[in-house]
């Protein structure tokens, strides 16, 4: 069966060139970069080269890059490390209701420790009101944390403007750029961010490696105490092969950024338009202006059906996508992002995300457009919410119909 992978916001395949540069570090160059002998020297240069490659992609200095194990670690490090380092300055953090759990759960944890968190609401398109953000700032505010782009909707947030607000008030600014890096130009200096997180496995590097940008001069308490690795900013033996892979992936992402984005954008637009045209009773989740979403992301709800059952049906066709349904989120609630956007709950359960990659082909998209409408219809025919006026009036159906 043909396999069509449209879940690149969840994770991406390792790029063959990335794997190629990694392999010598599993086979021959196995040293610990902290060692002074040949085995250590063979690898320490490779770590520094990767640091330069990562830095170049986001216009940082190599010394500002700290290697970490995943995006979640970076978000925890940035936020908890700021809370601890700047506790004497204040106890207020501003973030949004649509952040990744790595940010939201970290903030919830800090609430228990006496921090006040403002979770900025979003509108029905999932966008922020910057005037509200500015109004939320108090003399206790030590951090603004806003993601560069949302993993579920693909919405892009106005990072440069937020950076300007942060600068105006002299407040530290962290951005979770896990979904933005590799899909959009990311320039830490232009954006005015102090802390930025990226994750390898979203950009063709392997799972288990990421990077935290720490602007020079930013006081940040480490999350992992111990050895002197990463100049005391992150203890633990380096994931050498992973780091080398991340460097290469960043280099490739920079080289092919424009071309990959254009390619994904064209196919995403085709998929989006095709679905909107072919499947009735749908709701696009995220900003209606396609320029304000990541070029690869489409999130859409199909009324009357539930997301996991749609995913399983698509999966039988070899199509991999994801859903905001509770049944796939690991929690009992559907996606908090859909909730924040006031998406009606049964539509939230049916929200379906297609996220394209550089390898996605026109045939992939054509095939999805070929099988999706009938698949949705088949599930609708099974749904008590669909067309239920035939039997008896049902409050639930009325709610859905109103959308």
């Amino acid at each position: 069966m043909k396999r069509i992978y449209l879940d690149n916001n969840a994770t991406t395949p390792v790029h063959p060139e990335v794997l190629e540069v990694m392999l010598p570090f599993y086979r021959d160059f196995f040293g610990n970069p902290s060692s002074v002998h040949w085995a250590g020297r063979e690898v320490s240069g490779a770590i520094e080269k990767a640091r330069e490659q990562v830095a170049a992609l986001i216009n940082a200095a190599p010394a500002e890059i700290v290697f970490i194990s995943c995006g979640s670690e970076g978000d925890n490090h940035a936020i908890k490390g700021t809370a601890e380092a700047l506790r004497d300055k204040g106890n207020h953090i501003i973030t949004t209701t649509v952040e990744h759990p790595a940010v939201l759960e970290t903030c919830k944890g800090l609430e228990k420790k006496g921090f006040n968190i403002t979770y900025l609401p979003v509108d029905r398109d999932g966008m922020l009101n910057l005037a509200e953000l500015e109004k939320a700032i108090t003399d206790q505010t030590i951090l603004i944390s806003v993601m560069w782009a949302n993993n579920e909707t693909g919405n892009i947030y106005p990072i440069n403007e937020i950076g300007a607000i942060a600068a105006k008030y002299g407040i530290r600014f962290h951005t979770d750029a896990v979904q933005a890096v590799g899909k959009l130009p990311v320039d830490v200096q232009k954006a005015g961010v102090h802390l930025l997180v990226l994750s390898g496995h979203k950009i063709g590097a392997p799972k288990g490696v990421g990077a935290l940008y720490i602007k020079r001069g930013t006081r940040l308490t480490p999350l992992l105490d111990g050895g002197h690795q990463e100049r005391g900013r992150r203890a633990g033996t380096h994931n050498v092969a992973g780091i080398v892979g991340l460097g290469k992936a960043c280099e490739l992402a920079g080289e092919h950024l424009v071309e990959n984005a254009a390619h994904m954008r064209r196919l995403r637009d085709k998929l989006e338009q095709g679905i909107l045209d072919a499947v009735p009773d749908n709701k696009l989740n995220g900003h209606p202006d396609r320029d304000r979403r990541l070029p690869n992301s489409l999130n859409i709800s199909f009324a009357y059906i539930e997301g996991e059952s749609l995913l399983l049906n698509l999966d039988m066709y070899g199509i991999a996508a994801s859903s905001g349904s509770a049944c796939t989120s690991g929690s009992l609630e559907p996606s908090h992002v859909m909730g924040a956007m006031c998406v009606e709950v049964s539509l939230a359960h049916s929200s379906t995300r297609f996220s394209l990659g550089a390898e996605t082909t026109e045939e992939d998209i054509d095939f999805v457009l070929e099988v999706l409408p009938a698949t949705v219809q088949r599930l609708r025919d099974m749904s008590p919410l669909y067309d239920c006026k035939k039997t008896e009036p049902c409050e639930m159906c009325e709610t859905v119909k109103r959308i």
Partner: protein
Amino acid sequence: MYSDKVMDHFTNPRNVGEIENADGVGEVGNASCGDIMKIFLKVDENVITDVKFKTFGCGAAIATSSMVTEMAIGKTIEEALALTNQAVSEALDGLPAQKMHCSNLAADALHEAIKNYRGKSA
């Protein structure tokens, strides 16, 4: 994640649909939980002669709905009332742990339909 039996009932659900002039109709679940099951019954001389279902929900919800219809047809009302959610999930060779709470409601829906039938016929 799902057993082969679950996938079979999910892929080829038995007895999907509605029964016009059903003798009993039961509905459980709600949209916020992500699962709604509706069961329609035909009863003849205390024996369930036909069952149909409509379900909004995940793979487990659809499979358990399908399974409960197969299990209920031919049973007496009393026998059907003895059917438990647990029995349904066992008949499907089990469900993932996180599905036991929300999606394993098919027997409840059947019982609701029986209640509705008894209410009508009383």
